[in-house]
């Protein structure tokens, strides 16, 4: 590996990069790292001139959007860049070991023992066909720990205990664990050989806020225990504010800015950093919106009406099943549009509620009516008109498109299937108009394949696709949880515009109370299928009464290094399953805006 220092030299002169003073000698030193990808005769500079160092026990956050080079930087430190990518220059030493000078076999031994990588997407990071313990053993044995199985098991139990998991977890298979547990297992694997440097690549991006808070506090604890330096990669600048000592902002493969977390939040130097900080939705920066009018009684049938609806999964003669949603009634008015946010952790029943409203799941008890007509058991023709009136936007903009077709296909199919008698020129104009309505330039977007567009662009297309059918209700299930931070605000603005400009009502499903606060007129908080709190966002989120809601709020990583995050105590003593007394008072509640919620005894 050649070492080029000229690049790092002029970056050192960059005033935006201030050296963070530290008493200890740096455990990690990176100088002039550059990674290129060679494809189709072109060279893409994925990472250029990245230099930084990190002391023992310190934490460096690397923040940036997808494609900013943050994961590539991490993989370069692991020497795991795949062809056609290549480290073209630079130097990286960990505790005196020059990583780029090692042979492949030597580098393999350094992985986990010197540098650990805790991957993104813990959902799939464990080999599905082996027990948890085997996934530890593989790594331990290949680092020369050929001790007996029972000795290895003792150490695995110890590592699991350090991430607050019981030792019997080691006998389970990955699919038997929850997302948070899998991520803890990955952390336990990562630290079992006490590395000098831990690289955690978006370790909590697939988890809900409470689980994220728990996993981050676990990570904090184990890092302190083994005394390693840590690089935390992420796109959530709020999480960075709560977790790291120093921050490095990356964009297009270069460092935009680097400094202590306090300095960066106090006086961000790069305009891009400022944009990232400002794009985080917080409660006190609520956009001005029209106060909902006082509820007026209306004779028209409600737009959506759930009466005594509940859902139980897996009922059979052998099992009573699992109750995903306890009986509840909800009415959304038809005479004025409203945005109802459903918030809760994963497993709280919020997605079930959305699927019920879409008619994708039949309710176990109760009835669901849309504009007065039941949504289940529709004739083929009524089914089509219902589909036209009720549209969905899903979480994952990557798998919402059929990769074999150009994105236009996602527009033309519903237009054909749902009986719009238009074609050719008129249809193209309609599609182009819908793109423009969500702020996309149709000439740049249409006629391209999904993989050519960013996640944010795809998700906005999904909003446009829902919009084009002129529906009356849109169910948006976590529409922004998988897109880059800077795109979130504009997609939420699109959602808001659905109501304000096109009079479309929205059911907004999310685990993020901050965005719920920003866009909704009405919030329902679900815990284990129970409604625990409901009302206008100013009451539910601004002045919440239920401990679970407060826990959700306190778990949000605030983009302010000086504001304390929920403590571990609070998490441990937080409400488990709600007992009868803790749930929302069983009664009929009418709210301004005409939304009504009823929770039976």
């Amino acid at each position, binding site marked *: 590996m050649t070492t080029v220092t000229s690049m790092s030299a002029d970056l050192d002169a960059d005033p935006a990069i201030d050296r963070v003073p530290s008493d200890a000698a740096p455990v990690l030193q990176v100088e002039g790292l550059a990674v290129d990808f060679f494809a189709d005769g072109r060279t893409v500079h994925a990472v250029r001139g990245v230099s930084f160092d990190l002391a023992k026990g310190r934490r460096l956050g690397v923040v940036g959007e997808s494609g900013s080079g943050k994961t590539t930087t991490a993989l370069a430190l692991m020497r795991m860049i795949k062809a056609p990518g290549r480290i073209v220059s630079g130097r990286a030493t960990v505790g005196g070991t020059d990583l780029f000078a090692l042979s492949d076999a030597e580098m393999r031994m350094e992985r986990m023992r010197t540098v650990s990588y805790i991957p993104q997407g813990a959902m799939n*990071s464990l*080999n599905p066909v082996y027990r948890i313990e085997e996934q530890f053993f593989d790594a331990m044995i290949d680092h020369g720990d050929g001790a007996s199985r029972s000795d290895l098991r003792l150490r695995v139990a110890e590592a699991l205990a350090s991430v607050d998991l019981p030792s019997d977890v080691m006998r389970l298979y990955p699919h038997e664990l929850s997302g948070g547990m899998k991520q803890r297992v990955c952390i336990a694997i990562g630290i079992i050989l006490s590395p000098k440097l831990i690289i955690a690549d978006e370790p909590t991006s697939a988890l809900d806020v409470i689980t994220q808070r728990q996993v981050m506090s676990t990570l904090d604890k184990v890092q302190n225990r083994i005394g390693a330096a840590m690089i935390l990669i992420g796109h959530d600048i709020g999480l960075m504010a709560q977790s790291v000592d120093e921050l490095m902002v990356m964009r297009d493969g270069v460092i935009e800015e680097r400094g202590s977390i306090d300095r960066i939040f106090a006086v961000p130097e790069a305009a891009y950093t400022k944009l990232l900080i400002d794009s985080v939705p917080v409660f006190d920066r609520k956009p001005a919106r029209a106060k909902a009018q006082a509820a007026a009684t209306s004779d028209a049938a409600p737009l959506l009406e759930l009466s005594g609806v509940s859902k139980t999964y897996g009922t059979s003669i052998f099992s009573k099943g699992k109750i995903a949603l306890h009986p509840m009634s909800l009415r959304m008015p038809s005479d004025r549009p409203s945005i109802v946010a459903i918030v809760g952790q994963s497993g709280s029943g919020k997605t079930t509620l959305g699927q019920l409203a879409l008619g994708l799941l039949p309710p176990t008890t109760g009835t669901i009516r849309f504009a007065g007509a039941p949504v289940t058991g529709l004739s083929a023709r009524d089914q089509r008109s219902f589909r036209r009136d009720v549209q969905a936007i899903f979480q994952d903009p990557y798998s919402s498109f059929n990769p074999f077709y150009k994105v236009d296909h996602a527009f033309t199919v519903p237009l054909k299937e749902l009986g719009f008698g238009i074609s050719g020129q008129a249809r193209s104009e309609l599609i182009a108009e819908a793109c423009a309505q969500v702020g996309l330039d149709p000439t740049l977007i249409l006629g391209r394949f999904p993989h050519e567009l960013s996640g944010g662009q795809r998700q906005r297309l999904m909003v446009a696709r829902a919009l084009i059918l002129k529906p009356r209700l849109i169910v948006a299930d976590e529409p922004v949880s998988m897109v880059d931070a800077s795109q979130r605000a504009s997609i939420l603005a699109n959602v808001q515009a659905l109501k304000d400009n096109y009079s479309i009502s929205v059911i907004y499903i999310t685990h993020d109370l901050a965005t719920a606060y920003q866009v909704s007129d009405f919030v329902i908080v679900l815990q284990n299928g129970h409604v625990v709190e409901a009302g206008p966002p100013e009451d539910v989120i601004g002045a919440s009464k239920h401990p679970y809601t407060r826990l959700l709020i306190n778990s949000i990583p605030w983009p302010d290094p000086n504001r304390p995050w929920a403590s571990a105590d609070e998490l441990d003593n937080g409400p488990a399953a709600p007992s009868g007394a803790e749930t929302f008072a069983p009664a009929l509640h009418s709210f301004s805006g005409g939304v009504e919620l009823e929770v039976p005894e």
Partner: protein
Amino acid sequence: MRFLNLFRLVSMFLLVVFAATTLNFFLPRLIGTDPVAERISAIAETGGGNVDIEAMSQAYRERLGLGDTLWSQYLSYLGDIARFDFGFSIANYPVTVNELMAQALPWTIGLMLTATLIAFAIGSLLGALTVWPHAPRIFANLTPAIMVLGAIPFYILGLLLIDIFAFRLGWFPIGGGYPIGARPAVTFDFALDVLRHAMLPGLSIVLAAIGVWALQMRGMIVTVLGEDYVTFAEAKGVRPTRLFFRYGMRNAILPQLTTLALTFGQIVTGAVLVEVVFGYPGLGTLLFQSIGYSDFFVIQGVVFVLVLTVAISMLIMDIVLPILDPRLRG
């Protein structure tokens, strides 16, 4: 719950066998030829003399139960099948179908099953190595050759092998299961002869099938390589061989096994061409000849064995796959 699942699997198995058996009864009878007439005209040609064709055909029909209505034939057929009794061969009366199959089955199983398993093992390994990043480069360069092999039908390959190794070089016999004149016996010499005779047909199957297995495995490995657990395993510093077998192969092989179960069913049908090309005394040759004579009972017997092989191998896979893939355990 486990017991219930097994019950479900076995019921499904019985249903499949029943449905296939029923089809098996009616399909040969739709061909429209009269096997008894064919048989008797064959006797008349060879035997000569004054044969009372009417009386003889009547006797045959009665003896074989072909005189009854189709429905009662079907019922007695089901009863016989349940007792694994397929009756007499029409063409080789009074030899029973079971006797004919018992002679042929060991040859087919010995040759086809072994060849299929060898092709599966080599093909899967080879296919995986063509795309595995740490594998020697030579394997990646093999891909075009594997594609060519996968595209050649095995009977063409068989003819080619006969021409080169049997006809020109004389290394192996041209055909047959054992030397003409040798009596099947459990001796070392005879076993060696059998092996020499099985070499070329076996090789033609293995070579042709390797390509198909390898290409499928290649696709699966590409998918597995993109999985997070492979990335994490590499980050764990796991040895390359362990990474390959326990993370790559172990996961990529799962869909291959389902295909393998289906392939077992084609062993007999696949055997037809190979066995005919090589004059191999197996079930394929028997089936081929029986179709020529419209020998219903033999066809029914062979096809039943075929149905049973597919159904049993699927049943075994349904039981084995959950052991290999914990996610499938209910």
